[in-house]
């Protein structure tokens, strides 16, 4: 068909770009098996020691634990606050609606370094000590907007007749919410939670400004980058990578299975 790119040219081109996208991932996973002693720069042979001795480097292990803890806490708070806003935006008309939309859009459009510098100057001016709590507070802030966008898309596609049916059957507002609205919103909330966790887990730019001497995994990697990173950092990164890919595949398989079932019904 004219007006389209030639099929084969663009296919070969895309495969090359995919390959380049994957190079650093392959490199990171490969070097998690490197028999490195102190710095993990030159390939010295295959070993499983880094995987079996995953917590041999206590500092990496602690930073990983901090990242997981901050990620879970930030995800829970951001999902609660963001879902409430999303429901209000879809279900109600109210004054200052446009102002709220702008307030939600701005954190996504502000360069991260400005968010970090702003939070940092606020903490300095108020004399608040920087630690993992301030890191979590900052992560919740930049996750909320993404939660609202994700859950709102799901809520807008719901049929309000379902909630009306719940009320017609004398469900109390709480019952209608927990037994109709919430289960229907759940896929959107799960997607928002995965996105929030991923954003929080990999954030460095803002974390660096609000963490003081506390360390998350990206912060540790940044500090260690100048003198060489232990292979365990690659192990943790690879582990998370494979878990995330498995989750994505599982979610798409479940979605495909559900669609098939609906088509058959």
């Amino acid at each position, binding site marked *: 068909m*004219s007006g389209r*790119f030639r099929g084969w040219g663009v296919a070969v081109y895309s495969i090359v770009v995919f390959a380049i996208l994957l190079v*650093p991932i392959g*490199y990171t996973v490969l070097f998690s098996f490197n028999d490195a002693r102190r710095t993990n720069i030159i390939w010295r042979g295959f070993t499983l020691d880094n995987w079996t001795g995953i917590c041999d480097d206590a500092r990496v292990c602690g930073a990983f634990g901090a990242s997981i803890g901050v990620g879970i806490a930030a995800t829970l708070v951001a999902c609660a606050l963001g879902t409430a806003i999303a429901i209000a935006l879809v279900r109600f008309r109210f004054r200052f609606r446009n102002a709220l939309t702008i307030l939600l859009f701005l954190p996504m459009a502000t360069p991260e370094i400005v968010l970090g510098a702003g939070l940092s100057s606020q903490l300095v001016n108020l004399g608040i000590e920087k630690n993992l709590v301030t890191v979590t507070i900052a992560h919740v802030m930049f996750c909320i907007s993404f939660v609202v966008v994700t859950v709102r898309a799901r809520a807008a596609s719901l049929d309000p007749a379902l909630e009306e049916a719940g009320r017609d059957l004398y469900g109390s507002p709480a019952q209608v919410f927990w037994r109709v609205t919430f289960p229907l919103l759940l896929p959107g909330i799960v997607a928002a939670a995965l996105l929030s966790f991923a954003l929080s887990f990999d954030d460095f730019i803002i974390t660096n400004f609000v963490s003081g001497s506390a360390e998350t995994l990206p912060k540790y990697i940044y500090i260690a980058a100048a003198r060489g990173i232990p292979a365990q950092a690659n192990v943790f990164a690879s582990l998370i990578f494979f878990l995330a890919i498995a989750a994505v595949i599982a979610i798409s398989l479940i979605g495909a299975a559900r669609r098939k079932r609906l088509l058959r019904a």
Partner: protein
Amino acid sequence: MAFGAFAGGPEAAPGVAAAQRKSRIVLLLLLPGVIYLAITYVAPLISLVLTSLQSPSPDLAIGSYVYGFNVGNYVVALQTYAPVLGRSFLFALTATVLTLLIGYPLAYFIGVTLRRFPLLQSLALVLVIAPFFISFLLRTLAWKQIFSDEGPVVSFLQALSLLPHDAHLTGTPFMVIFGLTYNFLPFTVLPMYTSLERLDLRYLEAASDLYASRWNTFWRVTFPLSLPGVVSGTLLTFIPATGDYINASPSFLGGLDTAMIGNVIEQNFLVLQNYPVAAAMSIVLMVAILIPVAIYVSATKTEDLL
């Protein structure tokens, strides 16, 4: 639209009581999140403006400042760091154009060519977002090792005599732009994919029925229809790339003379504790980004993206 989930049961009469109840529920839903953003987004920006106007405290202790109206910080920020600001925009703009040129055919391939193969399409999307699942910093360090002086790329280019024996790739502007382009490519591809995925192919058939050339069809039908994706993709790349301080850092892909504005802000904030100048630079950066972005969005008539 006032069919509230909580706006009253079937027996609630529409009246003052119901309206009061509704506004109470809206407040309950909105207030926690809005207060949170007011404290952690709005207040820090105000704090940043106040900090950017501070003067050194009279006892001259390092990192200690008093509130004032010291516009001198902005003068210092602009005079000392104007070349750095210019370099940041140059690097970020180059990387944005590159991600667009590299990413558009890829987005087209996934969104249009692979449409008949849903399984391959999902696989291709997973491949595009796969880099998000591995640490941004480790990915960037992997490129540093691959392009290092002892690494495979430099040795190969030297063996072919394409690169002199004393040449480096790491620490050069080329490498910083390479890193920015690589790291932000998925951000450009995904929105463009979303636009192209919705493209109605019958428009292209109509164009060719009207004897439009391939080139004309692309420029006058395909590209304009994918413009919202192009605009949000390039913004998602340009805004964070301008403030990035990882790729340009000497510990990663940059060198001593590739510093971007982010590196200077980080240095002044976290190392030199020169908060007022760092804050002034952050404000300058934000304004310098928002103005061209606003012009870009209104010039491409894509305001409804916001």
